[in-house]
């Protein structure tokens, strides 16, 4: 698609987004968040941020030896938020994979995340019945493995091939023995960028590595200015630790990324029942205040800085206090946040596709679908965590990502705009006339062109009479086919330049001859 903003992925524009909050309720929640920031205030652990807030007429008082209490007057907050751009462009190695996040257009994109520690491989084995050895069943067997740069590279290659994945957030943490805090960032960004031409987003492990990471991105984009025009990477920072504590490290990362003019998600993830009220009103008022405080700081540092409203509110599970994603309240909290972001005219980073199940199957599908669909219907511009996550955000399973891609494709198709143009209607009437003149009065033959153009749904590609085991086996076959496609590698000149300029990237990620040595 080509528009004033350049080429970008089409995504799906949700015609009439599902809304949970009435206008009056949005006003009430906005007032509550404003009151929290003006009267209760936030605890700020970062000295530079304290200075910035103070310079912008916020009430700053020392709270204890490590923190300050920052109270943001309503007027200051409003002015700062209104400086945030309504549109944020996220670029990509292939500029056609860029994303245009427009707070006034509910164009939805789905992507991966989060930084799981476990990679779950699946294989199919044959089992014999103990009662009757003649009865055999093919069943999936799952093996947990550590996240490594090699697996991250594979995940990025798979992401490149998943049709409905619009952006890549690394789904697995790299835990190789030769990875440490100093080289973590350059390796995770490099392994991602070298294997996908889609937008790459991640948090920073070490602020010291920010400029090295930017050097990688600048080399790929074609220079400093070119990177700002086509930001092939962007960042996530969880500035606020709930409840209402602006932490030192993440806040400094926000300030530094904003100073460098790169897009950033300002995210908060309170847990209803432990770090935020479990009741919807209290939860949304608090998380909204937390995100707004970060957005306000970003705009005080650099008015017009490209930021994204990052809302990840979850429910606490009361038998173990883990995050609970496959819960009705999860949808309530998140849809409210999507509406609040739209109210402030800031693009929304939201969450869908996480469940409690530890393996692919019926529970995982139910829990994922239970959030994939409503969050998409609510029109969040940027939906992360949507591919391959299991056991909350602890496990990434690539075959689950293949299943999720299918399900997200169905949702995108469902939400696509109806084709009711003059030509469509005239064509439909011609078709009806033709069929009524025919002997058999069947429309079946008129399906063909639309079917081939992908305008009508064919059938569930992993359909099986062997229940979910058969579905997983077919999805595994699909995954192998996707991964057998040639990798979309960097140009060798780009690769050489990056290895020359940026220290710490593992030599085994460099191609030798035609392919990377992994």
């Amino acid at each position, binding site marked *: 698609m080509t528009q004033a903003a350049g080429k970008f992925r089409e995504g799906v524009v949700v015609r009439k987004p599902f809304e949970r909050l009435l206008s009056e309720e949005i006003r009430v929640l906005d007032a509550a968040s404003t009151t929290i920031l003006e009267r209760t205030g936030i605890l700020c652990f970062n000295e530079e941020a304290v200075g910035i807030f103070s310079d912008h007429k916020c009430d700053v008082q020392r709270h204890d030896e490590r923190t300050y209490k920052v109270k943001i007057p309503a007027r200051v907050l409003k002015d700062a938020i209104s400086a945030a751009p309504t549109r944020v462009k996220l670029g990509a190695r292939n500029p056609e994979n860029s994303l245009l996040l427009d707070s006034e257009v509910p164009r939805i994109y789905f992507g991966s995340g989060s930084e799981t520690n476990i990679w779950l491989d699946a294989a199919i084995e044959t089992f014999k019945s103990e009662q009757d050895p003649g009865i055999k069943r093919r069943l999936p067997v799952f093996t947990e493995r550590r996240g490594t740069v090699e697996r991250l590279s594979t995940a990025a290659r798979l992401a490149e091939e998943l049709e409905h994945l619009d952006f890549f957030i690394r789904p697995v943490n790299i835990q190789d023995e030769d990875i440490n805090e100093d080289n973590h960032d350059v390796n995770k960004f490099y392994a991602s960028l070298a294997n996908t031409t889609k937008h790459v987003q991640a948090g920073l492990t070490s602020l010291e590595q920010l400029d090295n990471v930017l050097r990688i991105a600048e080399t790929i984009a074609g220079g400093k200015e070119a990177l700002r025009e086509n930001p092939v990477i962007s960042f996530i920072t969880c500035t606020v630790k709930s409840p209402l504590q602006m932490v030192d490290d993440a806040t400094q990362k926000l300030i530094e990324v904003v100073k460098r003019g790169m897009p950033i998600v300002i995210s908060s993830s309170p847990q209803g029942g432990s770090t935020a009220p479990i009741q919807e009103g209290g939860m949304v008022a608090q998380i909204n205040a937390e995100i707004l405080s970060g957005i306000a700081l970003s705009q005080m540092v650099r008015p017009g800085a490209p930021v994204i409203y990052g809302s990840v509110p979850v429910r606490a599970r009361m038998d173990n206090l883990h995050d609970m994603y496959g819960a009705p309240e999860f949808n309530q909290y998140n849809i409210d946040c999507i509406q609040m972001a739209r109210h402030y005219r800031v693009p929304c980073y939201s969450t869908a596709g996480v469940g409690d199940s530890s393996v692919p199957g019926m529970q995982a599908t139910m829990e994922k679908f239970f959030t994939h669909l409503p969050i998409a219907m609510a029109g969040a511009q940027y939906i992360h965590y949507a591919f391959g996550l299991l056991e909350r955000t602890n496990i990434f399973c690539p075959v689950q990502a293949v299943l999720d891609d299918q399900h997200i494709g169905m949702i995108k198709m469902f939400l696509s705009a109806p084709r009711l143009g003059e030509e469509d209607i005239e064509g439909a009437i011609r078709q009806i006339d*033709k069929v009524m003149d025919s*002997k*058999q*009065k*069947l429309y*079946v*033959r*008129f*399906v*063909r*062109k639309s*079917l*081939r153009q992908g305008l009508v749904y*064919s059938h569930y590609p992993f359909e099986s009479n062997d229940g979910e085991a058969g579905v997983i086996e077919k999805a595994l076959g699909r995954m192998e086919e996707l991964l057998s496609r040639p990798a979309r590698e960097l140009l060798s000149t780009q690769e050489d330049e990056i290895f020359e300029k940026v220290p710490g990237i593992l030599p085994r990620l460099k191609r030798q001859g035609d392919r990377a040595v992994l």
Partner: protein
Amino acid sequence: MAEELIEKIKANVIQGRVNSEDEGFDEGFEGQPATVELVHEAIAGGVDVHSLIVDGLTSGMNVVGEKFESGEYLIPDMLASAEAVGEAMDVLAPHLQNAGVKSKGKVVIATVKGDLHDIGKNIVAIMLKGAGFEIIDLGTDVPGKRILDSVGQNKAEFLGLSALLTTTMREMQNIIEALKEKGIRQDVKVMIGGAPTSPEFAGKIGADVHCADAFQAVEYANSVAEA
């Protein structure tokens, strides 16, 4: 010239284009003569009817069958191609005898009395016609007597009965009993189908075969015709 025309007919069968109004699904066919127009042109040009059927229509249908088997084609493609062949056979009908081409057999087909469902029956009719059988389609809600009369008058080799309701499927048994009473049961192969029917039910009422779908119907009819 003749070879080129036959190749075009084959290509149009594969595209499932009956006439020039059909766009097919590959680009470049819009407005071009399709199966029916090309068959007319071939007849006018004196192309050998036997070659036209074997190298054009049948050969095209074989490709369609292979594409269906491999999953590249779906039922709409198969039906469109069968319909193109069926229409072509109507055009060719007056020329078949002179060319020494025999019909594979006549099929009387109907949805039984009390039942208005005809999607499955229509699909079977299209596919059988595309496979070279002569179809006498009596429609839906057809009284037993009319079916019997049609089988007798047309000396049909096959009778296809369809029902979608458990209440109407019993009518199939009445028809088979009536065929026996009329003394023509042994002259006609009775094929039954429809959602509530089964091979067991076919056996119980004395039908020759139960067809779960149009492909089974074509396979069975072909096996009888070739025997």
